[in-house]
């Protein structure tokens, strides 16, 4: 006989009881929808973490003051960047020494930070101001949208010029071109010479466009200098020339700074270095673990759905015992009965998987639309959902089908 006929028998039985079939599939629908949604949410989170960390600059090592745990660097606790600025152990001289003595460094950027009230043309705004060197743009992978960045000479001379982020530009001047205008930072007048390209919001909710960049010397002495000593910096960004040299550069920086700071062997560092690659790795691993956990919980409901299918298939085999007996009497082989019932279970499960996939995708899109959480539907969601639902049908349909196939036709025909 032709195998398509067995599939027709299976679908015929499913269509004969639409309500029951729908309820039987419901468990798989819920299971697959949950798995699809959970993995989409997990992948979305992973992508956002990745882009945020990559947005901080690639091949980057962040050196900040304060004791580290044995100087191992990186690790899952690396989310505190920018917050570690309490110590004053980093100096201009450290940055200069790194620039001179460490090889494979593409850019080095010492930074001081402060919060400042801005006023310009009657508008007020409170923003972050960073004192940097021109190399800062290279280190952080930033770009100028209009105007220009200040150069080395302007930086050294402590000229009062700033490059501003898109948020600052909008808040102070709306749609007007800010280049060439004046802004007072804590009453100190600065000239706007450039506007940065937008970097958007970081996954930690910080607006990365709400910033002013000024020459290191000018910002340190006039804005944040009241609290900081004359030659301290809060962070030194070191950009390696490529990903391969990242670890080597980090090691050299650590050794050099220990030497600079006269730290004896065995003593703890008075600074921390964080390597973007290892931060990325650690955070990706953390998010992946979290995704797998969510998906595993969701997968439990898929198994429960499978048990539901097995339950109804066992009922169906009992109910249709006479039908099975008759099919055998008119010449059905045991294997054909087995396949018919297995196909019925697989079809139920697969239909549930299809509907669940649809609901899961729609649900993920809805979550993204509501903006509560970043969502990325993995491209393998479809094949995996359908593959797994078929597998669930096969596994949980196997026992009922086997029961059907081993019925004694005489007993089966006699059953009321």
């Amino acid at each position, binding site marked *: 006989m032709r195998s398509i006929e067995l599939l027709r028998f299976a679908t015929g039985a499913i269509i004969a009881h639409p309500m029951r079939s729908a309820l039987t599939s419901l468990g798989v629908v819920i299971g697959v929808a949950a798995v699809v949604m959970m993995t989409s949410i997990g992948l979305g989170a992973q992508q956002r973490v990745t882009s945020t960390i990559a947005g901080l600059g690639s091949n980057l090592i962040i050196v900040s003051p304060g004791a580290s745990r044995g100087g191992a660097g990186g690790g899952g606790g690396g989310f505190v960047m920018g917050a570690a600025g309490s110590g004053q152990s980093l100096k201009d001289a450290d940055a200069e020494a790194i620039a001179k003595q460490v090889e494979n460094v593409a850019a080095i950027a010492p930074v001081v930070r402060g919060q400042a009230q801005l006023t310009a043309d009657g508008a007020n705004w409170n923003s972050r101001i960073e004192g940097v060197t021109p190399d800062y743009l290279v280190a952080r992978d930033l770009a100028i949208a209009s105007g220009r960045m200040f150069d080395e000479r302007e930086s050294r001379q402590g000229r009062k010029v700033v490059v501003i982020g898109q948020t600052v530009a909008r808040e102070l001047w709306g749609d007007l071109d800010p280049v060439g205008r004046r802004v007072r930072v804590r009453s100190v007048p600065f000239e706007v010479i450039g506007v940065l390209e937008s970097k958007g919001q970081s996954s930690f909710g910080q607006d990365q466009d709400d910033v002013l960049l000024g020459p290191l010397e000018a910002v340190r002495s006039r804005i944040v200098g009241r609290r900081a000593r004359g030659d301290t910096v809060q962070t030194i960004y070191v950009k390696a020339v490529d990903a391969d040299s990242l670890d080597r550069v980090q090691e050299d920086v650590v050794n050099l700074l220990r030497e600079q700071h006269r730290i004896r062997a065995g003593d703890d560092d008075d600074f921390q270095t964080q390597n973007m690659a290892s931060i990325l790795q650690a955070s990706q691993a953390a998010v992946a673990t979290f995704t797998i956990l969510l998906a595993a919980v969701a997968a439990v409901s898929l198994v429960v759905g499978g048990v539901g299918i097995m339950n109804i298939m066992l009922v169906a085999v009992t109910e249709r015992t006479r039908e099975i007996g008759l099919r055998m009497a008119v*010449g*059905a*082989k045991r294997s054909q009965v087995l396949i018919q019932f297995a196909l019925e279970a697989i079809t139920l499960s697969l239909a549930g998987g299809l509907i669940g996939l649809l609901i899961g995708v729609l649900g993920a899109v809805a979550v993204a639309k509501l903006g509560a959480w970043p969502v990325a539907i993995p491209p393998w969601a479809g094949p995996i959902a359908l593959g797994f639902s078929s597998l669930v049908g096969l596994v949980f349909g196997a026992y009922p089908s086997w029961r059907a196939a081993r019925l004694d036709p005489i007993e089966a025909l006699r059953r009321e």
Partner: protein
Amino acid sequence: MIEISDLRKLYVMGEEEVAALAGVTLSIGRGENVAVIGPSGSGKSSLMNILGGLDRPSTGVYRFEGEDVGAFSDDELAEFRRRRIGFVFQSFQLLPRLTALQNVELPMIYAGLAPRERRDRAAEMLERVGLGPRMGHKPTQLSGGQQQRVAIARSLANSPDLLLADEPTGALDTQTGQEVLALFKQLNREGLTLILVTHDHDVAASTDRRISFRDGLVVSDERGV
């Protein structure tokens, strides 16, 4: 066509071993019209199950057209039933969610006939049993006699060599039962070998040969009307 010798069928019932068939030797020729008669427990149903390939004998030989059916595997038995045997049951055994036509098509699906071919043949079989106009009806929309005609049409679908009817009139009133028996007689006249299993002597009287069973043994085998 059928040769059986010293056929036994033993069942274990608790501690005891019961012989449903206790050594039966018979031969039935092509084109015969035979009734197997006996009270319940006489072994007539066991004989029918073995003849139809639904069951295997415990010992003894069953040859059908020279083939040793007793030695067939499950799959060979399934094919034997499909190609050689047509069953008619007391309780019709129609699938309730299928129409009359679809019920008759069922054996032909297992035989691998193409959809159009089997639909045409199913319609032809239903015409032959006088149910042409009702082929789209479901079993619940048909009377008992009509349902049994559908079952007979189904049993003829794959052109069997042997038609086995187990109490075919048992669920019908006398009038309808007579019509069904007349249909069997006609089919037999057209060349079909027929074995009718019954406990009813009136039903058995419609056949040419009557084999009586008691306690798993043949007690009489008489021919003629």
